[in-house]
């Protein structure tokens, strides 16, 4: 594997961070982006799944729901009451 799962997690994090407020990514979007970048033979869907897991379990990213489920950076909930 040309790229480690940790490196992919970092790249996914950068993608999410850069697009924050403009575009939301689903898990499949991140997976497709990594496979497009490194090639199907180099990274598998399972590798991408593990990379996403690293981001979520570390708390660097969270799941959000807006019609469908997306992966985003932790932020204050717009609808939340103090």
């Amino acid at each position, binding site marked *: 594997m040309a790229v480690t799962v940790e490196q992919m997690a970092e790249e996914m994090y950068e993608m999410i961070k850069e697009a924050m407020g403009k575009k939301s990514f*689903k*898990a*499949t979007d991140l*997976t497709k982006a990594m496979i497009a970048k490194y090639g199907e033979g180099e990274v598998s*869907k399972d590798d991408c*799944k593990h990379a*996403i*897991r690293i981001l*979520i*379990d570390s*708390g660097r990213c*969270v*799941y*959000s*729901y*807006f*019609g*469908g*489920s997306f992966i*985003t950076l*932790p*932020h204050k*909930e*717009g*609808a*939340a*009451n*103090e």
Partner: protein
Amino acid sequence: MADETKKTPKLDELEKGPWPSFVKEIKQARKVNTMCDDLLGQLETSYEEKKGHWKHGGIVGVMGYGGGVIGRYSDMPEKFPKVAHFHTMRVNQPAGWFYTSKALRTLCDIWDRHGSGLTNMHGSTGDIVFLGTKTDELEPCFAELTKEGFDLGGSGSVMRTPSACVGQARCEWACYDTMKLCYDLTQTYQDELHRPAFPYKFKFKCAGCPNDCVASIARSDMSIIGTWKDSIQQDDAAVAEYAKKGMDIQKDVCDNCPTKCMSWDGKKLTIENHECVRCMHCINVMPKALRPGKERGATILIGAKAPIIQGAMLSSVLIPFVPAAELLDTIKELTSRIWDFWSEYGKNRERIGELIQRVGMANFLDAIGLDPVPEMVSAPRDNPYIYFKKEE
């Protein structure tokens, strides 16, 4: 405890009549939990103004999970502070919805400590639904639930909590062990249940026989409906007994058979089993005389959904018969191919049935490596999606 309870003249109307009333239940609950009083107050306001006052939360949940909590906030928090947060938690129900009274008490005690005390047993997904808690209570509640052996169910773009009828635990018609299959699916797909990775929701429902008590054919993306391959088991003496006791077998059984595969000459009931479509009508009417055959298994169907983005759809046959012993392995193999295709080509919020409709069943079958079979056709000349090549 609330000293002064809110006046709810409109809601009070819903307490009248002989049927159960959710208003009555919430009023009972407000004696021990003040959240319920504000809940009634806000609901009364909604009835007065003909307007909902809930806001949808998007990121509340428990650490690591992307489902199981549905965020709700009041848009009138100053007026109804006790329901400023009113999140729902979905708890994975036991297969077949069997509980000990101890388990039910445990669940209720946990919810009394961390939420409104109000439950919905069960939501349409089958989950135990805990109605109304604050963000700060989510993690402690989850910790107590897991300590007692419970887990959250699914919400969002995940595999939703699989559900099953009571199956062989109580029902003599069950053609396979629905509860075991439901449990196995739940354990196999823990990641898919808790970590959203799909274009939209995906539901499994396991029905033990074609009576389909869990409405899988209407409500699940993949319906697993018990059936049999051989002939209906028939006890002629018991048929005669039904006739002797006054049952009009011609009118009540034969005339209601959708394929007219049965005939009654006044003494003997004859079934043309190759014409039977497993509707269960005759078996339901004469349970002592007729039973499903001995070669049992299930039909796997795909694509049902309730109306959300598009209208309601019923699922259609994908694999006509899988022997009971091979069900889990077959479903796992099939599901992996279906999810791969759906993840690749499904649009955001597109259910698998809608994707099949968009790309065509023939392309879908080709993509998942299944050959078309006659059972996929609902009626002769009625199905436009399968084309045979000239050489065939």
